[in-house]
């Protein structure tokens, strides 16, 4: 029923009084009369409130009566009201992109309420600009794509498995691929989990059992990604087993849950030089194996390889709590052992971790704050002991501790092969090496590329509870396109005129969404479903080969000239 684009524009202009918000300043009847004089305007009227149900039916009436194929409403800001008027147009069979709005309230009557005459003139101009555009706009279609209702989860740690379980419970097929021979990720190496002190392997076994028994989940271990093609709803991933066996997976969404590595502090504080300098990870293993010795003193050093001035500048979030937990565990088993924690700032945040800190204080664990510029030193002493010298910042004194064991708290770091994965998926890594989300605040687990998501420590260091929360979050984000099955995507997208394109690749580089690539012919091709319509490519195309739907150069130029009074029939 939509009106064809070849028709001569027949524009109707509806000018709103907005009570007296507009009408009290702008001479609305005069403006209506003016609107009638503009080219292609076949009808104009004023309404008390165009957005009221009465006003909306007047639009519908006008469309029918005057056979309008373009509608201009001169009222308030399109940012709030455009959808309403567009919907009204669509109800009458006018494509919603054939609607244009003139903002004569926020930008005119309210801003110039003490200059009614000038405001009236400005309102005329604003309507002229809108009409200039309305003459040139075309109906647009929002492309639709089908979504394959299955997800690929890359990484079989607690985050990946949690996301997979939730998606499976929501009824979607999930493929987990894990590069190691078994599921579990980092948790496999841990003893107990703070703050509940639950046994890590017990918890892990439960989750693995749930994953393995879920008929919607398919697990491939010792498997890595080789290639990823396609876009949201229609990804095609090539995966390969260690034995070389390859397979193709067609999925609608992809979840990156690849976890993190733990930094090995070679060359720091005597690590690998003295046998009794170990990392928290090694301590976890000793605790797990029940290999504690009757140490007189254990000294833990925080921020080893994190919060550095250059390099790993970030705080690894979990090390303070890990140290507290392991210190408490040592104290439980060896009450006479003195445990020192040499820290910079204690990251005992949130609702529970302060209490945990207090528990450690209760047990007599000793805390010494050191300064980044005066880090502790560890030297070997006689009889196998270690001497730790540290400047106690809060006393302003040098303190010497003789200990049997020094435990270094080292940060989580990104895997070495993450770069490769980021290139396969065309998703970015941040300067800290972790995967970089679409928006730090409001799209924390999405990538800018639709259909790909991130959770767990692949995103940034976090503990189990936080990884689980994020994994569940991702299970929702990824489920949305799969639940709706068909996606409508942005209609305001870029179009490439292949004849003009020289294949210079400027647009490919500029597109923040990876929506443009060079095709076999060497010319730019827009994947419409990935395009968000910002228009940066068009404005920069050296050959002016790219145009933006609904915001063409012609339309914008016409508006600009109309603003200067130049609008000719």
């Amino acid at each position, binding site marked *: 029923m939509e009106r064809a684009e070849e028709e001569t524009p027949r524009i109707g202009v509806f000018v709103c009084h907005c009570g007296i918000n507009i009408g009290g300043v702008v001479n609305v009847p005069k403006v209506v009369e003016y609107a009638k004089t503009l080219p292609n305007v076949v009808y104009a009227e004023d309404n008390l409130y165009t957005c009221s149900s009465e006003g909306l039916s007047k639009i519908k009436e006008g469309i029918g009566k005057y056979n309008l194929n373009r509608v201009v409403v001169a009222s308030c*800001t399109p940012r709030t009201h455009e959808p309403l008027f567009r919907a009204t147009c669509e109800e009458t069979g006018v494509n919603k992109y054939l609607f244009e709005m003139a903002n004569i309230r*926020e*930008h005119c009557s309210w801003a110039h309420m003490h200059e009614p005459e000038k405001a009236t003139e400005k309102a005329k101009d604003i309507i002229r600009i809108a009409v200039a555009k309305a003459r040139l706009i075309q109906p647009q279609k929002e492309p639709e794509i089908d979504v394959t209702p299955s997800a690929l989860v890359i990484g079989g740690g607690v985050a990946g498995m949690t996301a997979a379980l939730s998606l499976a419970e929501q009824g979607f097929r999930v493929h987990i691929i894990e590069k190691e021979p078994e599921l579990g990720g980092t948790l496999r190496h841990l003893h107990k989990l703070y703050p509940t002190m639950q046994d890590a392997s017990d918890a892990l076994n439960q989750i693995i059992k749930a994953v393995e028994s879920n008929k919607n989940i398919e697990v491939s271990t010792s498997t890595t990604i080789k290639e990823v093609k396609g876009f949201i709803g229609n990804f095609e991933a090539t995966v390969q087993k260690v034995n070389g066996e390859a397979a193709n997976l067609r999925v609608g969404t992809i979840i990156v849950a690849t976890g993190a590595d733990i930094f090995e502090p070679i060359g720091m504080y005597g690590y690998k030089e003295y046998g009794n300098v170990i990392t928290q990870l090694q301590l976890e293993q000793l605790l797990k194996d029940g290999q504690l010795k009757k140490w007189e003193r254990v000294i833990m050093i925080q921020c080893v390889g994190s919060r550095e001035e250059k390099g790993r500048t970030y705080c690894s979030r979990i090390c303070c709590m890990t140290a507290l937990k392991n210190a408490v565990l040592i104290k439980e088993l060896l009450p006479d052992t003195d445990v020192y924690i040499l820290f910079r700032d204690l990251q005992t945040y949130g609702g529970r971790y302060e209490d945990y800190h207090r528990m450690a204080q209760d047990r007599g664990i000793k805390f010494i704050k050191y300064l980044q510029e005066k880090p502790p030193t560890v030297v070997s002493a006689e009889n196998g002991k270690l001497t730790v010298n540290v400047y106690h910042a809060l006393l302003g004194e040098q303190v010497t501790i003789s200990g049997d064991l020094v435990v270094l708290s080292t940060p989580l770091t990104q895997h070495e092969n993450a770069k490769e994965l980021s290139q396969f998926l065309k998703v970015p890594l941040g300067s800290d090496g972790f995967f970089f989300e679409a928006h730090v605040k409001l799209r924390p687990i999405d990538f800018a590329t639709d259909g790909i998501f991130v959770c767990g420590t692949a995103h940034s260091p976090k503990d189990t509870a936080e990884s689980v929360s994020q994994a569940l979050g991702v299970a929702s984000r990824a489920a949305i396109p799969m639940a709706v099955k068909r996606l409508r995507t942005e209609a305001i997208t870029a179009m490439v005129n292949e004849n003009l394109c020289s294949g210079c690749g400027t647009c490919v*580089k500029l597109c*923040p969404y990876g929506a443009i690539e060079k095709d076999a012919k060497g010319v730019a091709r827009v994947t419409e479903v990935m395009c968000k319509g910002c*228009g940066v490519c068009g*404005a920069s195309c050296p050959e002016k080969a790219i145009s933006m739907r609904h915001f063409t*150069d012609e339309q914008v130029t016409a508006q600009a*000239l109309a603003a200067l009074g130049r609008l000719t029939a």
Partner: protein
Amino acid sequence: MTFEPRIVGFLCNWCSYAGADLAGVSRISYPPNIRIIRLMCSGRLDPVIILETLAGGADGVIVMGCHPGDCHYVEGNLQAERKIRMLKKLIARTGLEPERLRLEWVSASEGGRFAELVKDFTSQLKKLGQSPLAEEKPDTKILAGVLAAKATAADFRLRVLVGKEKGLIEDANVYGEKVPEEELDKTMEEAIDAEYLRNRIYLMTKDEPLSVKELSKRLDLDPKAVLRHIVVMRRRGLVAIDRVEGTTPFYTALKVE
């Protein structure tokens, strides 16, 4: 009657347009001289459109986008910034005051700032006076300059330089080298100069065939330099010899497909 400047504002949908809305909502008054055109992103704005607007007689053009870091489309606003920087250099060569073009960042909560900017720009333009291209009596020389600038902005060379500027500075060129910003600036400057003059020559020779000497006089440029451009333009198929008078060749613009 005092002179009332006509300002065309190109505002991004997400921040600046909303900021202008907020100015209205908050009833902050500002001079009614601005006409706002909404774009999805300030990065959408093609330099050609701006030059067209100026050629059309606008006394001022103001482009507003999200603050750096706020861009709804990651960094379209920074692309706009690069374009405006180039444009100002280009405009400076036409005889039109580059101050007639402004780029500002306005967030959705900065209604006051929006109004302040309009006020400021309006008074700045009042001081500057009416655009020499305003309808009644456009200054033909400047108009010719602006049209040449427009053509320049539409040309491949500058567009590719601006479009790739970020990549060249931040990533690397095809040889894996990062281009220092100053070096790129210099290249840009030279390119603007050259392309602008070539377009001037092209437009002049479109009207009538001209000799190097005449061109040099009209452009106030060393004949040697003019000739160098002519050589390049001949190679690109932009001009050809129309006739030779004595020993003096006259050049004429060719139609470009």
